[in-house]
């Protein structure tokens, strides 16, 4: 090969490599995160991250369809992002990296921590302009979505927790199916009657207090404790009533041997293999989503719901969680994104979504419209909403959640007395809170 051809060849290779590098750099810009204004066909494309599957995904798709029909110049690009109730690490890095989605489905109780980190857009102004105020939603939903007086998310769903019980099994062991337990003692006694043990294995368990929605939050409130003192801005995990609750859980674990229970719970499935549906678990604490589940997988299950038994048999409590839509800091198509948030949080959007998913709307009138206040099972859930608690809105929401979960683990496994464990946890969270001041 002559020298000039060789040199030309080298030059070509170098320029092709350089060009491809350049193109790779350019195209990455377009593929990442939200589009800058004009996407395809002149529509504004809004990226929406969510973690929904199954029934909830159907609901979301219907809402999007209706929204796009009403707003032909906006296209919602729904992207599945496996976040969940734990902190969404993918979202975190996206916000830090400067290319977050325009909006994302978000566990409402995380709003406090994330807002305190400055990672969510303040939408108070948008809300005020659209006429959305505190009265638009249940009070606890609004409170959870706000931090230091500013609104950061639009609540979308909510729930409450009750005791589900299998009426057929009640009849089988001689309990009155129309008279479910009201006190803790009645609950423990009923659970014992309903349990069938075969050596070390459980054929059927009457009740597992910490299964399903039986977190320390649930029992703490049921026993009459408080987790957070707003006036001192301190967490009170070691409230005497909460210690009492944890003691009851520990005693229960010791009675039935925690490892055998763990074997049982580990072997359980979900969906149609859920132990409550298969009759292996006679009672459980859960939320309204179980109602949809039962309807889908085992509609002939003869069950009832009742408020969670308390030590006194009166003064029933529950707590509500729920989801919301938030706008991460640095979102690109804020106005278009806000329109979707507004729609989802409006009575119309709420009706579509909750109608399909059967999770409660955050708007009382919608719940009435959808018949939730009349359905014999669901009306129990909505009836208790007025007295429902919500998790403290503090910058360390996740730490507190983790600590109360860990506390149950530690106590039931015998790693210290409930008082010690809760004292330690309280200190830990309060110390972390102080740092954030």
């Amino acid at each position, binding site marked *: 090969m002559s020298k000039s051809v060789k040199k030309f060849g080298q030059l070509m290779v170098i320029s092709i490599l350089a060009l491809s590098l350049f193109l790779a750099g350019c195209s990455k810009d377009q593929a990442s995160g939200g589009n800058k204004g004009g996407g395809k066909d002149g529509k504004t494309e809004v990226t929406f991250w969510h973690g929904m599957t199954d029934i909830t995904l159907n609901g979301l798709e219907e809402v999007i369809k209706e929204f796009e029909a009403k707003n032909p110049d906006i296209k919602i690009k729904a992207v599945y992002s496996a976040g969940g109730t734990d*902190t969404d*690490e993918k979202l975190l890095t996206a*916000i830090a990296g400067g290319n977050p989605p325009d909006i994302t489905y978000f566990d409402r109780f995380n709003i406090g921590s994330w807002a305190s980190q400055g990672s969510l857009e303040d939408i108070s102004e948008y809300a005020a302009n659209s006429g959305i105020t505190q009265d638009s939603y249940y009070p606890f939903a609004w409170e959870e979505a706000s931090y230091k007086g500013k609104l950061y998310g639009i609540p979308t769903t909510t729930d409450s927790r009750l005791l589900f019980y299998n009426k057929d099994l009640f009849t089988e062991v001689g309990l009155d199916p129309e008279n479910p337990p009201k006190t803790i003692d009645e609950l423990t006694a009923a659970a014992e009657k309903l349990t069938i043990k075969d050596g070390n294995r459980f054929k059927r368990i009457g009740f597992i207090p910490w299964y399903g929605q039986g977190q320390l939050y649930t029992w703490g409130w049921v026993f009459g404790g408080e987790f957070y003192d707003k006036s001192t801005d301190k967490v009170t995990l070691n409230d005497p009533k909460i210690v009492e609750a944890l003691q009851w859980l520990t005693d229960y674990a010791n009675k039935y041997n925690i*490892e055998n229970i*763990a*074997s049982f719970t*580990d072997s359980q499935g979900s969906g149609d293999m859920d132990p409550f549906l298969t009759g292996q678990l006679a009672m459980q604490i859960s939320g309204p989503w179980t109602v949809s589940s039962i309807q889908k997988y085992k509609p002939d299950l003869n069950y009832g719901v009742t408020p969670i038994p308390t030590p006194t048999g009166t003064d029933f409590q529950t707590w509500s969680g729920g989801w919301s839509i938030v706008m991460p800091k640095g979102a690109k198509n804020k106005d278009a994104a806000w329109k979707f948030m507004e729609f989802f949080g409006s009575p119309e959007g709420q009706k579509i979504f909750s109608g399909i998913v059967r999770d409660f709307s955050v708007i009382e009138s919608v719940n009435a419209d959808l018949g939730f206040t009349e359905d014999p099972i669901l009306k129990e859930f909505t009836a208790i909403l007025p007295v429902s608690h919500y998790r403290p809105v503090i910058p360390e929401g*996740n730490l507190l959640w*983790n600590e109360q979960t860990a506390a149950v*683990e530690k106590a039931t496994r015998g790693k210290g007395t409930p008082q010690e464990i809760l004292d330690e946890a309280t200190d830990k969270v309060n110390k972390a809170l102080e740092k954030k001041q």
Partner: protein
Amino acid sequence: MRVAQLTKSATDTQPLVLTKKSSFFNKSNITGWLFALPWIIGLIIFYVFPLGSSIYFSFTTYSILQPGEFVGLDNYKELFKDKIFWISIYNTVYFAVFFVPLSIIFGVSLAMLLNMKVKGMALYRTIFFLPTLVPHVALAVLWMWLLNPGFGLVNGMLDMIGIQGPAWLGSETWSKPSLILMSLWGIGQAVIIYLAGFGDIPEEFYEAAEVDGANWFQKTFYVTLPLLTPVIFFNLVMGTIGAFQQFTLPYTMTNGQGTPANSLTFYVMYLYDNGFKFFKMGYASAMAWILFVIIMALTAVIFLTSKRWVHYQGK
């Protein structure tokens, strides 16, 4: 005298030549550096810079979303008082202490089995290597089902011989052994390296041993293993480094919770939680650097003691 004369005349008649070898910026040097530049830039941007930032962040309350403030050695002091930090170290060390020696023993034994001149050996070797190709998350889910106390195959088989299997991943005492068992499933990679090591041992040693009347046992312990020590050394170092960074398996299996009762909370898991869940990236960075020091120290110890037990051929 004559030699001096010769050299003197040699230097006299030598013309003055400017030796460019001493200068740094001669042509071949610059070209060399230019070609290496892309890799160097990559190294600096993706390796040195993050490394340096990480050290800096470990002295602050950086939380990814906020730059945080400089707090000096506070993160480190807090770490030493943190109970879960010590639990995670205990779990990680427990795992490393049991896993690494077991993986070497099983690895070498398996390699010896796979080194026999049996028909279809290539097939057997492939079979033993296959588990390493399984992604860790899939591995975790697979073993969760196998070790399921209610209807998993492991307890099923134990049941058949009349032993009531423990609650494996649900039991505090058995959760780490289960993890060690799972990880041992992936020794295929090390086995391949041992097989290569076997190939390195010259036949002459075996022939000499035969002549001296050595039996199989003596041959293994006096010829094979000593000459395999360089490979074992390599796997020991790599195995230790890897064992201390165990993350994917326990995280997937316990959904990040380290249940039961923190018995599966490994060091890197706790680091990850602190960095990404609790908004304490500075704290997590401090943990990362402590891990670096620990692994570095262990590796140094292994290297130092290697002189006594590693026999390199052809030295």
